[in-house]
């Protein structure tokens, strides 16, 4: 009785050794580093690495370590001033095509890295950074899709020579077409369902003119929404790459939300500005045939619309868009030496350049307008200027489209793939516009509905606080257990400490995010994990009181407490899993560490303590147990 078979030692070693190994990287901390990645086809290679390393060395700095893998180049530095200097140097010498991001990199030795050991992945509340939850305006993307069906149907009916008395989008989202007679209606109906299987129609003969009511299928609308969301994620990702953030997280959450996490970013103002902007350009021709002043007085001629310059001056443009930001594949800001203003240099894709060549060739001497388009959200106001509320008392928001003509130069020559636009207010504006055009526009507006930003120094403070409370709690429990249960207490303490090491190892291995509430989960585990030992030890004491021998008491104590421990832990686990399921960000971290802690504590408190107790008391005659 109470002896350890060999396999138990083997299992123990298989638990303890990996636990310490994988927990070890956390001891080394992190160094400031630089991460270089290629964008838009540029690749980082061994030669880039040696180029960069030489650059840094020539400036008298020595990177602590360098590495190259498929995610890019990493350089580690001894301090942040070297890191910042090196970034300046690399950014200015490497040129476009690469992103150079600052980050913190694990400072552990290579042999650990080769084992695949990594430090815990710290949440933003511990490392500092920005967390955004963005609401994607799916309904407006769907509205636009419906509106484009209206255009498509008009075109289709025209091409098929089917006369109609109007196609319009109704307020409820359905499309109503009026026909002259039932014959043409049926013809039209036939054509429409043949071309657009996603539309379903209901004919109506009761009205003055035969009607056809079309609705877009739910499946198609969902597809539109998913597509808009996916495109937004792509656009956000490339914008973030432009910002130069290492290890960003951009994830879909549910049907209409995107989570963006930017570790280490301090300047949330710029991040917010760049992420939320929907700015793009549209290029149109100026309507030179009609008079602007008469259009203002009465109504703009068909096919044209009045737009305004930034200073409010009106201009009449032909509504047909020539091409838009989507056709722009590259953009860079610059400076016009002649006029002294900021400019943006644009490069068009093949479709855009073909159109550009044709239109500018046909319109030499006419003007071409560059329209700046941005979707914003603003509160809906009533006539008195107060915000309008919905049933829940929340403000109602409406999407607002800003359209400003940046410039409308006369076309002097045929343009092609590359051209530049001027008329921008400042150099900063030119830079931002170029960035947004490069990264691609958002398919539909996004709005930040939650932001949690933690500065890096506060993150460091939080780590310290978390560390202190874990150590404080651990020491208090260790002292208490040793005083109360003596030798058995020491055994429990060993198991408890091992449990903490295992939790850290598991968190590191699975790269589960450790947040400040996650640390609280760890602290709580320290307090609750000894429960299993308390249950066992109290049982042993009971057995001793019932005058069972020491060996029998140990045996029965462990045996009888077992099912209680399982029951008690499973119920706690249920609560933790519910918490995980419901939790957002930091709270999820709490649920994770608590769940891991519960599971690992069962191993350490039952299995490991038994081995130790057997080692101390097994195989010999014992008069008294120090319990």
């Amino acid at each position, binding site marked *: 009785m109470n002896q350890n078979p060999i396999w138990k030692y083997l299992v123990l070693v298989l638990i303890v050794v990996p636990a310490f190994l994988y927990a070890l990287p956390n001891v080394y901390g992190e160094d*400031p580093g630089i991460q270089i990645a290629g964008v838009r086809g540029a690749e980082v290679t061994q030669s880039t690495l040696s180029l960069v390393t030489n650059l840094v060395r020539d400036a008298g700095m020595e990177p602590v370590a360098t590495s190259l893998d498929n995610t890019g180049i990493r350089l580690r530095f001894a301090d*942040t001033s070297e890191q*910042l200097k090196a970034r300046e140097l690399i950014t200015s010498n490497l040129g476009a095509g690469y992103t150079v991001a*600052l980050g913190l990199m694990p400072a552990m030795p290579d042999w650990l890295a080769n084992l695949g050991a990594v430090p815990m992945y710290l949440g933003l509340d511990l490392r500092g950074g920005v967390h955004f939850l963005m609401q994607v305006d799916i309904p407006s993307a769907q509205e636009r899709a419906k509106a484009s069906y209206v255009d498509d149907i008009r075109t289709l009916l025209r091409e098929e020579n089917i006369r109609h008395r109007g196609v319009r989008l109704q307020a409820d989202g359905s499309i109503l077409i009026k026909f002259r007679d039932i014959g043409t209606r049926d013809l039209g109906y036939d054509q429409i369902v043949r071309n657009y299987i996603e539309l379903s129609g209901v004919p109506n003969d009761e009205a003055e003119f035969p009607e056809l009511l079309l609705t877009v299928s739910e499946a198609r609308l969902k597809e539109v929404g998913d597509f808009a969301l996916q495109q937004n994620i792509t656009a956000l990702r490339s914008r973030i790459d432009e910002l130069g*953030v290492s290890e960003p997280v951009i994830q879909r959450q549910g049907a209409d939300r995107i989570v963006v996490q930017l*570790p280490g*970013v*301090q*300047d*949330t*103002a710029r991040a917010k*500005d760049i992420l939320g902007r929907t700015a793009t350009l549209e290029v149109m021709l100026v309507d030179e045939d009609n008079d602007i002043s008469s259009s203002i007085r009465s109504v703009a001629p068909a096919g044209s619309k009045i737009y305004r310059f930034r200073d409010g001056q009106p201009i009449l443009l032909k509504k047909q868009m020539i091409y838009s930001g989507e056709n722009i594949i590259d953009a860079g800001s610059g400076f016009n030496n002649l006029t002294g203003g900021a400019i943006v240099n644009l490069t068009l894709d093949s479709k855009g350049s073909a159109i550009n060549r044709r239109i500018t060739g046909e319109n030499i001497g006419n003007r071409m307008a560059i329209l700046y388009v941005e979707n914003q*959200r603003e*509160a809906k106001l009533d006539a008195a200027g107060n915000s309008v509320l919905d049933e829940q008392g*929340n*403000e109602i928001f409406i999407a607002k489209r800003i359209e400003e003509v940046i410039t409308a130069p006369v076309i002097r020559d045929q343009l092609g793939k590359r051209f530049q636009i001027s008329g921008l207010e400042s150099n900063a504006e030119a830079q931002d516009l170029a960035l947004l055009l490069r990264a691609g526009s958002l398919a539909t507006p996004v*709005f*930040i*509905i*939650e*932001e*949690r*930003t*933690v*500065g*890096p*120094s*506060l993150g460091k403070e939080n780590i310290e*606080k*978390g560390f*202190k*409370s874990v150590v*404080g*709690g651990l020491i*208090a429990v260790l002292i208490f257990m040793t*005083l*109360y249960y003596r030798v058995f207490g020491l055994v429990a303490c060993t198991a408890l400490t091992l449990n903490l090491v295992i939790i850290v190892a598991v968190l590191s291995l699975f790269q589960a995010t450790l947040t*400040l509430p996650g640390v609280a989960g760890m*602290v*709580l585990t320290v*307090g*609750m994990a000894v*429960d299993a030992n*308390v*249950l066992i030890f*109290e049982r042993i*004491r009971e057995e001793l009181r019932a005058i069972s021998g020491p060996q029998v008491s140990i045996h029965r104590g462990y045996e009888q407490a077992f099912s209680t421990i399982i029951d*008690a832990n499973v*119920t706690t686990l*249920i*609560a*933790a899993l*519910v*918490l995980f*399921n*419901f939790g*957002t960000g930091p709270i999820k971290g*709490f*649920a994770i560490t*608590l769940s891991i802690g519960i599971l690992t504590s069962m191993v350490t408190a039952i299995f490991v303590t038994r081995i130790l107790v057997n080692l101390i008391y097994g195989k010999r005659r014992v008069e008294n147990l120090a319990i």
Partner: protein
Amino acid sequence: MQILNKETQIPFLSWRLIGAILSVVLIASSISSLMARGLLLGLDFTGGTLVELQYQSSVDISDVRQTLAEVGYGDSVVQYFGTARDVMVRVPLSGETQDAEFSTRLVEALRVPFSEVGLSSTGVTGKQQCSVEGSIAICEVQLQRVEFVGPQFGAELLDKGLSALMWALGGILIYVMFRFEWRFALASVIALIHDVLITLGFFSIFGVEFSLPVLAALLAVIGYSLNDTIVVFDRIRENFRTLMEASTEQVIERAINQTLPRTILTSVTTMLVLLSLYFYGGEVLAGFSLAMIIGVIIGTYSSVFIASPAVYSLGVSREDLLPPDKDDKTVEGELLP
């Protein structure tokens, strides 16, 4: 060391009326406070903006208030946070504070008195830099933390949180029903609702802010309190099997007394770590640890004075817990050692 060196014989079941009265009083005052005053809901649930700033040198809070009032954010709550250099500003949701850009405008406004303007940077380390009268310097006003919760999102979080509580209770009900018996399940859920109500009542009566971490703590309290209750229930079940002569009352009373040392001890170790968390964990975790401290006290009390007496009052008997196919009394007797 042993606090209780032999098995106690406290007549808990005879005291159950006292426990019931005490609990009814506590629950009644909790509910009336919750109805009358409600909970002081934190930013997570109401929506709004919270900005934590650190000034390079100590700052007068009335100056900060005045600066904010001048730009029209007069309804902000401004308070020191730790030292005279750390300032926390909370702004409720209103017309122009509904968007995430508001925090940026707020910090800009607070930098105006120092005639400094924040510079764009995406640096990882070091302090934020500002341009001050043409030159670059470390900003006097350092942005430490921003929390912004939009209007619909806050309500959604509360909704999700409350439904999580319901899910946890439901899951537990089913597990206990499956492992024990419906009377035990019902008794444990009664005890848990008791714990949650009184903890919520505490937050309402003392006007402590109810935030997302506090909600998480409530779920952890459910887990903890249940843990305690299950240990006693387990012992009750065991005693029904081993103490054939004892009455139901004796069986339950004995189980509570046998597990009493463990109940006290585990509460002590949990309390030790919670105190460590409360004192070292900082402001973010203070609400969490406070809720847990209250919850652990109430939870420990309820598993002794509410859950087990409730099982008794619901009329549990030996037959309910023995294997269902062995309903013949004589066969049962032979099973015992």
